[in-house]
């Protein structure tokens, strides 16, 4: 309540400003936006930007955490692109992970959100249960549990044995280990599911009423009404999940104990970066790796924004 009154008072000058000079026109046009952004600006310039610039600077140094950094020019970047097989490997692992986990996760989230939207008893409970795996987050328990599931004598193989299939130790075989992490990511589809649910809630009911009066079937309603109206949310989830996928760290960290093994098959990009920074004392190099990742992710995101014009429908 106090928040309301204090922020409200910052809005009132806006209403008073109404003289026709150039400055006041500029003020009229811009002040609103900047005032609303004021907290963000304070945070951005006060807390966020400084460390970001520091990390950019450090990427051109040999900073080792414990002694002062020396400027080394673009040497870190040169090494990344010319002499670092682990960079290539971790990029490969990360791309594969993003490529499979993001679409699968979104598809699951969307399907379950549609199913759990309305029209059945006990939905609140189902929703909570389906969100549960995401609640576990990065708990140490997940590491132990995933091993129980996907080890050679794990539950998955016990199940497969019923059909006469003798499975390998999925989680520790370099050929399959990444897939167990993809399964883990997809299994934790709770967050995009909730966002889809919230998006579905925002679609006005009268649209559906009109459509059902016209006799459209459910499938058609989904494609012609629900999905287009949901595109801003689909877009959001796709962007966020892609960014998060590229930055994905914790699952591999807890399950491989921070090693990225077997044979670097789960060496996610940020895991490699973390090793360089904190295990091998090469924060300068790690910073360079981070900025390369930023460039890659920004490229993807920028491209998505460009295409969004053609498939994301805003009501404006």
């Amino acid at each position, binding site marked *: 309540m106090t928040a309301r009154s204090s922020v409200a008072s910052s809005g009132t000058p806006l209403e008073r400003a109404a003289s026709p000079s150039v400055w006041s026109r500029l003020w009229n046009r811009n002040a609103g936006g900047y005032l609303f952004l004021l907290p963000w600006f304070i945070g951005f310039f006060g*807390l966020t930007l*400084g460390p970001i610039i520091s990390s950019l600077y450090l990427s051109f140094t040999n900073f080792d955490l*414990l002694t*002062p950094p020396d400027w080394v020019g673009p040497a870190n970047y040169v090494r990344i692109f010319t002499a670092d097989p682990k960079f290539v490997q971790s990029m490969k692992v990360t791309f594969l992970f993003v490529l499979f986990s993001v679409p699968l996760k979104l598809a699951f989230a969307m399907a379950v959100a549609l199913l759990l939207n309305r029209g059945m008893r006990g939905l609140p409970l189902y929703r909570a249960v389906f969100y549960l795996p995401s609640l576990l987050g990065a708990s140490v328990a997940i590491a132990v549990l995933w091993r129980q599931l996907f080890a*050679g004598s794990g539950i998955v193989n016990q199940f497969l044995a019923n059909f006469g299939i003798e499975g*390998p130790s999925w989680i*520790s*075989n370099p050929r399959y280990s990444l897939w167990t992490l993809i399964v883990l990511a997809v299994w934790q589809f709770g967050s995009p599911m909730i966002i889809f649910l919230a998006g579905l809630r925002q679609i006005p009911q009268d649209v559906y009423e009109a459509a059902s009066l016209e006799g459209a079937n459910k499938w058609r309603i989904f494609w012609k009404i629900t999905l287009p109206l949901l595109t801003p949310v689909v877009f959001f989830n796709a962007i966020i999940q892609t960014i998060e996928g590229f930055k994905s760290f914790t699952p591999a960290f807890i399950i491989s104990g921070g090693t990225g093994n077997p044979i670097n098959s789960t060496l996610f990009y940020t895991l490699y970066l973390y090793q360089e920074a904190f295990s091998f004392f090469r924060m300068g190099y790690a910073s360079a790796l981070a900025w390369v990742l930023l460039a890659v992710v920004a490229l993807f995101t920028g491209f998505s924004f460009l295409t969004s014009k053609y498939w994301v429908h805003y009501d404006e």
Partner: protein
Amino acid sequence: MTHLDRRQFLLGTTALFAVGAIGINPVMSAETRMRLIFWGGQARADRTYGVTDLYTKANPGVTFDGEFMAFQDYWPKLATQTAGGNSPDVIQMDYRYIVEYANRNAIAPLDEFVGKHLMLDDFDADQLDGGKVGGKLYGISLGANSVAMIVNKAAFEEAGVPVPDANTSYEDLPKLAEAWKAGNKRAGMALWQDGSGTEPGLENWLRQRGKALYTAEGKAGFEAQDITDWFQMWNDLRDAGVTVSPDDQALDATDAIENTMVTLGKAAVTYANSNQLIAFQAVNKDPLTMTNYPRAKAGSMGGHYRKPSMFFSLGASSTQKEEGAKFINFFITDPEGAKILGVERGIPCKSSTRDAIASTLDAQSQIALNFVSNLGDLLGKLPPSPPANAGEVSVAFKTKSQEVAFGQQSPADAGPAFYQQAVEILARAKK
């Protein structure tokens, strides 16, 4: 190369944007507050805080702010605190990291306190040397341990196979495995862990060949052929059915106790350290015991050494180094404290302290104490402390061993390849 003070720079860029804010500092009182940081679980914390309480009682006015966390979380936090100019007063150090921290002056040399606050007269010489980097003393060993095999005694007894002992060599393993397979009652339990990726196992074996992991100059102490032989030996053992499958072995990514082959019931013998028997027993149903790493071949010796399991060091930026040194001395000397600590961090390094606790130890601690004290001809000299970047070599070794175990590379190729990798990694260390 231009050179800029790291803290000045970070301070500059961040303070530039910093909002004026009211810092909330803990209320400072007249007493001395020492910051102490260590890794470990609850059991270690209880013991450690037992000793800090004793110290506070003996030295009114000195209190401790202790922090403890898992090994994995410990290093990023310590590095961040150190980089931020906020390092604790007393820091637990690892044998591997002490070199990295000492070379970068992040921990303080202790030589000036020796004889004044640190009474090291009856301190084991090899343990004292283990805390030295470049001739200066940077850490006081809190206990000696040695590498050791953890053995599932119950499974051996059920199978009617004698438990491996000080004479067992790698050459004996295929035969032992035959006997094991004939008598074994445990489904899915192999005789031996696949130790091809266990760096301490490699070091132990190299030392018996008269080689080493690292020379005193920080170079590789082995040749490509040694590595080829090592991987070939394990390939043969794997083919002879001595070890667990590569799939199973890869479950044990970090030598974490809960993932070792013994704890998972996949093998009857696993590679570990002598101070870990209690921790192993806590998560195992079967009674366990401990023995040495195998001999390379019958009669070869000197693979083991008494290794400082962990140290206490002083933060370089600490303003209370003297008080810190006094505390470390109390920690390794006080008989009451020693009884609380037991051998949880390894065998105490002062003979007076060892005598004080000998009668109070439980059965398993006794096993550990006896094991480390009676290594006999298995015991060799302490190797020079590992060079910078040794940690990275260790990671590369594990990965290489998996490539061989999963059949991606032959031992003949893997030996030279790993040697090359090790040389490159060591050369990359910041001078």
